[in-house]
């Protein structure tokens, strides 16, 4: 059985180490916060906050306190607020250890596409280009194939790029792959998924 959303998030949480400052994207990456356990992780929200807490209790929402997905959140005892220029200063400056984000396509050279589909509604890249260019380690969490069954792990991205050669590790419903010299290297297969199945679902070169 391939991993479900929560299992992918749990696997991604294993990437995080005690003491890390981390930025989580929208979608499955947001779920990673539920699986960090006892590790001392500080979450960054790129609109201008370190130490992001959980959603507020009903009736305690504060319009001045939202995350990068514009959802109401809470602060923690460690929280610090700052402006967006400083926020992206710490991102661009390599102070954020890792970003975990979703993708539409990833290529074997680490190219990432996750911000636009030509001919479809373009909403903008938000902070994604800054994050992938700046943080220490970029971990992509996504389904291995599209809903039509096409591989999203490609030799070359077909969609406009968010970043060139920026991805370090790919976690999909079928397993974990690293971007290495010459292509992708299988780190592990999801429970019950064979290496053959993983290879068959991957267009990219596996070395």
């Amino acid at each position: 059985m391939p991993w479900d959303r929560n299992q992918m998030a749990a696997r991604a949480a294993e990437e995080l180490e005690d003491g890390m400052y981390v930025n989580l994207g929208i979608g499955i990456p947001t779920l990673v916060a539920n699986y960090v356990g006892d590790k001392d992780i500080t979450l960054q929200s790129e609109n201008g906050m370190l130490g992001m807490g959980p959603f507020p209790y009903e009736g305690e929402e504060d319009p001045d306190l939202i995350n990068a997905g514009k959802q109401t959140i809470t602060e923690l005892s460690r929280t610090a607020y700052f402006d967006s220029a400083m926020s992206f200063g710490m991102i661009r400056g390599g102070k954020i250890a890792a970003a975990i984000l979703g993708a539409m396509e990833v290529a074997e050279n680490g190219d990432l596409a996750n911000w636009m589909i030509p001919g479809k509604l373009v909403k903008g890249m938000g902070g994604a280009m800054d994050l992938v260019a700046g943080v220490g380690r970029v971990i992509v969490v996504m389904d291995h194939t599209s809903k039509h069954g096409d591989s999203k792990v490609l030799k070359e991205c077909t969609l406009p790029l968010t970043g060139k050669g920026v991805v370090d590790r790919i976690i999909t419903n079928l397993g974990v792959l690293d971007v290495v010299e010459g292509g992708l290297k299988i780190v592990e297969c999801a429970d019950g998924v064979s290496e053959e199945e993983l290879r068959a679902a991957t267009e990219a070169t596996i070395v």
Partner: protein
Amino acid sequence: MKKIYGSAAEALDGVLSDGMLIAAGGFGLCGIPELLLEAIKENGAKNLTFASNNAGVDDFGIGILLQTRQVKKMISSYVGENAEFMRQYLSGELELEFNPQGTLAERMRAGGCGIPGFYTKTGVGTAIAEGKESKMFNGEEYILEEGLFADLSIVKAWKADDTGNLIFRKTARNFNPPAAMCGKVCVAEVEEIVPRGSLDPDHIHLPGIYVHRIIQGEHEKRIEQRTTRKREA
């Protein structure tokens, strides 16, 4: 110099005109200068370019100026929540320049610091880099982005003293300080104006040198996505 004005309309008098580049603070609907945007709508100034991370929603934030066709161009990183925006953009009525969010924030900060350009890795190898000068530093490629120099800045803060020192609240700070810094004139709307001496000088987020006019008013502070969790029994 007296910085406190009686209303948003008064505070914009003589500093707002057609065709201006306006830098606006706010992220989503959080920390937006809602009173000043409403006053720009009432004023009727046209052909405006806004440097603002987002474009509001249809009936709040910059969205209200799209309804009245006062906006010629947006410089933004994300405009997904606004149907009227998309309609005008797809029909060619509205120009749009996408900036990565951090690049936009830094362009504002740089403009306010007298820095006309800076190199960044953000966007290298993407559509954002097209037509931009690039340069290698320590074996890595960077692209040149330009500082943003606005004609007018409009921002929202929590508290001001009468000299224009500002304090923001939580994540409503966001783009407000860099937006304030990059304008020739900055008008700030706040929830409370207090006498000088009442704010701890060590706690000022933006010194009054960047702030020329201040108004106080009631803010709706609309929530875009209300997310909550259940109380454990």
